[in-house]
């Protein structure tokens, strides 16, 4: 086993792992987008900015208060989620009666503000964030070397995605949520507080983005620009997966991450655009997306 398709296995598996890690972030972010879209009918353009905010909160906790990674993993999503709740209560809730496009435009403006503010104060050069002590080093799997932290990111994102899927598809609360997506007025008539549910959903969705930000901090540089290019790939993931299903968002996220990794091995020039090419092909064959319902 010296080469696979003419590629040394080390390089192939290395890129596949990188793809899987990118896929973990695509999945976490598109999952949050799907949850928010299902409930609010808003495409949250600020998702990338909130992911960046999560990473920055973790970095600020470490540098200003000495609070480490594990507490940040809990605190940063809470901070980002709370920020999201404030945004929803004060701004987004004013737009529900209007065309959904206004939600997109409002969150676009919010993304500009958040990113612009961090850029103003911290510049465009990234800040390093150390890997927590517990997850330093790596495992030699025989065919490749797996850094512990990267393995942890993949496992953590899988667990979060599965838990969210379970909560929405298999629990009573999730059933209320899905019912409110279909017919909010009727669900409200049953005595369920729908506005509260909408706020909580937005808070949860952006908290997922914040969590992804903390997970990303030790791998990528913590920089104000880290969200703005990622968000467009995630949009493409969402179009490919179709907005109908949570599962679609998650599976497409991992799948496209892996595909991107493979492209990097065999034809690196196309790795940046392969997701968009796939999107074009899927739109030609199945306009509603792979897992979406036509409506």
């Amino acid at each position, binding site marked *: 086993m010296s080469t696979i398709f003419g590629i040394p296995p080390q390089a192939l598996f290395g890129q596949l792992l990188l793809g899987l890690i990118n896929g973990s972030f695509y999945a976490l972010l598109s999952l949050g987008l799907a949850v928010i879209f299902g409930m609010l009918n808003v495409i949250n353009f600020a998702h990338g900015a909130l992911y960046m905010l999560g990473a920055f909160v973790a970095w600020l906790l470490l540098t200003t208060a000495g609070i480490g990674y594990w507490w940040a993993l809990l605190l940063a999503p809470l901070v980002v989620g709370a920020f999201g709740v404030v945004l929803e209560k004060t701004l987004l809730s004013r737009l529900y009666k209007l065309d959904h*496009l206004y939600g*997109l435009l409002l969150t676009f403006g*919010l993304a500009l*503000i958040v990113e612009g503010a961090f850029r103003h104060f911290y510049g465009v050069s990234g800040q390093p964030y150390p890997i927590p002590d517990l997850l330093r080093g790596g495992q030699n799997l025989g065919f490749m070397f797996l850094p512990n932290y990267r393995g942890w990111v993949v496992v953590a994102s899988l667990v979060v995605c599965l838990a969210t899927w379970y909560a929405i598809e298999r629990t009573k609360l999730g059933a209320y949520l899905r019912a409110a997506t279909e017919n909010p007025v009727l669900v409200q008539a049953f005595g369920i507080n729908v506005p509260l549910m909408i706020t909580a959903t937005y808070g949860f969705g952006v908290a997922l983005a914040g969590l992804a930000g903390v997970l990303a901090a030790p791998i990528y540089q913590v920089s104000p620009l880290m969200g703005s290019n990622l968000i467009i790939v995630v*949009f493409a993931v969402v179009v490919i997966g179709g907005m109908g299903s949570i599962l679609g968002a998650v599976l497409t996220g991992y799948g496209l991450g892996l595909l991107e990794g493979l492209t990097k091995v065999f034809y690196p020039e196309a790795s940046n*655009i392969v997701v968009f090419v796939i999107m074009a092909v899927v739109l030609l064959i199945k306009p509603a997306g792979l897992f979406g319902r036509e409506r």
Partner: protein
Amino acid sequence: MATEIDAVRRDTAAPATGRPAMPGLLALAALLLVLIAAPYVLYPVFVMKVLCFALFACAFNLLIGFAGLLSFGHAAFFGGAAYITAHTVKVWGLPPELGILLGTAFSATLGLAFGALAIRRQGIYFAMITLALSQMVFFMALQLKFTGGEDGIQAVPRGHLFGMIDLGQPMAMYYTVLAVFLFGFVVIWRTVHSPFGQVLKAIRENEPRAISLGYRTDHYKLMAFVLSAALAGLAGGTKAIVFQLATLTDVQWQMSGAVVLMTLLGGIGTLFGPVVGAALVVTLENYLAASNLPVPVVIGVIFVACVLLFRRGIVGEIAARFSGKRP
């Protein structure tokens, strides 16, 4: 989609009669006089920048304001044409008018491909698809050989228009840009007031009904998309000649956001709104660049304020006030 966005547009859109209305013609005459005199009062390069972006915003508005399609990827047409024009003029040595024409043709072709894909979905999906497709153009501009990567294409010669008029002269360049702008503006004016424009408005108001009346709405939407892309390309190509460069800034998705803001600020669905919006945003950016305030934050705040407080935009609010409707 009988939501408020439609109601807002209906109030402020150009009159539904076949001919342009009197106040519109008067406003056009006033605009023309201002633009002819402008370079004697203001810095000509600044006014040319405004004109290029005004044409870009008008082209974008043709789609959102009159066909109800929010494209978030218009930077691809603007920037793509800028690259093609810059390359053909600088490397192939073509005269500027031919370079701009090729840039426009490129954008129209690109618009046909992107439009054909994007009109398969509606609303926010349409916006996301156009955004994703335009990001593809961005990465190509970053990676292809002829685009010069991070540096872009610099020092593009302005050349001689029709082999006679030296565009190195600021006033010659200015009036050329003004002519291009007016051409684009009149095309949009005529489109909006043509039977074709009426069908677009019908699609914007109620697409299922337009379909039931027998219109092949996809066909109309695609034609509007191509026209809008071509005019955005005309603006981009002209910009490349004026500033003698094409860079990644032109194809970045932030540029698509900027043109949305210009249109929203001036007034979606009004003919003059995008011109006013472009002038304001360009002025603001020039002014802020010298100050200590972070530009994106200010732009973002304006964006949020527009969406929350005055969705009709400046020209839309004025038009609504004049026609005696409640503000």
